[in-house]
């Protein structure tokens, strides 16, 4: 097992153990917070919350991955090249938009419930994915494209056999950023009652119940970490053809919120 794989296993194990243990952790929390009676969040099952959280993030990210990479791909083909500056402008302008703002605007317009959250996550998730696809395709050496054509590959063969495999590590990094952001924003969707791991935090904050906040925060943090490490493990074999690049400051693209 590589270091990333063992870190992933450890993080996943911690998530599972904690999810199982928290309902029985009353005595432990009583030590930390001696003057309280409601110590453990019991309105929902933690495992249910995790699954609901993953469902909303998974669905929105999948849709965003399909559309976002499709749009970026189109803007790099010869027939769509004219639209590339427009796409880049859109991506640059949207940097100024915090993800939670999209959620906040979508909810009053669409109504309460998971649908506006899903749409907001989908919309904001598009941005890092499209960005990753553009950067990934840009990172393909011009010589590789040229030679693929010169050796007689059709445009489709060039795309699938040369461009996409070479772009894959960067594309995956964009997807990773998108999913990480969405995990955080999905938790914020609990402010409008959507069932995610954000619920214990929001309920805890509004009721001044610090144990609830702690339980939700630890689980959300671990979930984000586990998913992030899963992506890191996934991208390891994708870059095995690359010369080793010894710069730990560079390859991390995960973003907060």
């Amino acid at each position, binding site marked *: 097992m590589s270091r990333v794989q063992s870190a992933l296993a450890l993080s996943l194990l911690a998530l599972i153990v904690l999810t199982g243990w928290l309902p029985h952790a009353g005595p432990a929390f009583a030590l930390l917070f001696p003057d309280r009676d409601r110590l453990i969040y019991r309105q929902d099952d933690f495992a249910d919350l995790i699954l609901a959280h993953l469902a909303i993030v998974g669905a929105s990210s999948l849709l965003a991955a399909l559309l976002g990479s499709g749009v970026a791909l189109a803007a790099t083909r010869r027939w769509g090249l004219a639209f590339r500056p427009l796409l880049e402008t859109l991506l640059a302008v949207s940097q100024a938009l915090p993800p939670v703002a999209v959620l906040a*605007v979508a*909810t009053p317009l669409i109504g309460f419930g998971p649908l506006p959250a899903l749409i907001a996550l989908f919309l904001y998730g598009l941005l890092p994915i499209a960005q990753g696809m553009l950067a990934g395709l840009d990172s393909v050496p011009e010589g590789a494209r040229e030679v693929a054509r010169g050796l007689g590959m059709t445009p489709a063969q060039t795309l699938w056999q040369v461009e996409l495999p070479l772009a894959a590590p960067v594309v995956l990094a964009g997807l990773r950023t998108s999913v990480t952001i969405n995990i955080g924003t999905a938790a914020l969707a609990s402010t409008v009652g959507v069932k995610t791991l954000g619920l214990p935090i929001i309920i805890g904050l509004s009721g001044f119940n610090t144990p609830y906040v702690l339980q939700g925060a630890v689980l959300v943090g671990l979930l*984000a970490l586990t998913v992030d490490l899963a992506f890191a493990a996934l991208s390891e074999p994708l870059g095995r053809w690359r010369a080793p690049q010894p710069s730990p400051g560079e390859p*991390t693209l995960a973003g907060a*919120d």
Partner: protein
Amino acid sequence: MTWRAPVPGALALGTLISLWSLPFVRFAPNRLLTGDGLAWWRAPLGLGHWAALLPCGLLLLAWRAQSRATRVVGLPAAALWLVALPWLAGMAARQMAPEVDGLARVSLGAGFWLSWGLMALLLGELLREAAWPVWRRVLLWVGVLLALLAELSGGALDHLSLLREYANHQDAFNLAFGQHVQLVALSVAPAALLGASLGLLAARRSRVQGALFAVLNLIQTLPSIALFGLLVAPLAWLGEHVPGLGIAGIGMAPGILALTLYSLLPMTRGTLAGLQQVPAAAVDAARGMGMGSWQILWQVELPLALPVFLTGLRITAVQAVGLAEVAALIGAGGFGAIMFQGLLGSAIDLVLLGVIPVVALAIAVDLLFKLIIAGVARHD
């Protein structure tokens, strides 16, 4: 028959479609109701309806005309639309809800926002194609901005519910502005100092790099709400047991602390990247001329690393402006407080009152730093 300019054409077409198919303004008898949408041609605009000829003209222009014509006719037409559309919406609002303190509300519809945004993109695209020097492009945008500000301060938009909401929450708005700026400034400044030191350390001791960035990346991976939540408990404990500090689990302190932690990664990364891109030959030459290691740092490395460092600072500051929005959840205030209040009350105008200033602030910070970086780079 082919399109001369497919992108402006598509944008002009999109402007027209969103204007025709989506409500331009919404009318509600009071602020709690969503209200009914009014399409462009049903809104009381009088002669203002003819303004729709502007995107029609731009569509025709994109279809057949040469690039010079788009410059001479297209640019003013697009800029005029950006200024005229809010004015028309304000006029419609005055017609439909004449009393400023009455219950009836007129808000901006999706048709307004989309057709305005698409036209802004169209203007940007026309400017890009015109290949003007930067100062002329900036001048045009500043002109549009000043015209909009004039409308705003002249009262032309006062009857729109967004402005009525602002009038009602003016005190909260000003307070939020102060808090938001405070949150950003008080977290980015220490993070810049600390991040610069950490970046310098990482550049000097490559063995520290791995562990340092593992920790910083871990923090960056944590969702903001989780980090805020994790800080609540220890800070509350500190507040209870060390009363003199004035610290509590909720409020400004955990907000600033969390934003500082988030800002460390981009600052450290920016500093390290800045130092790493200093040409080894320059350092070598400095050493060869007899400079000491501090002299090399101050006279060679830091000046050469400055533009990249400032870019890191720019990214950090823009990120902090957005993240501060979430800090309202733990009582840190800022525009997030207004936004969440609107979100909980399902009041879109209140949400926008908490979102639009943040976006404007982020863009302003971004531009400010870009100007500074351009200035620094010119001296090189």
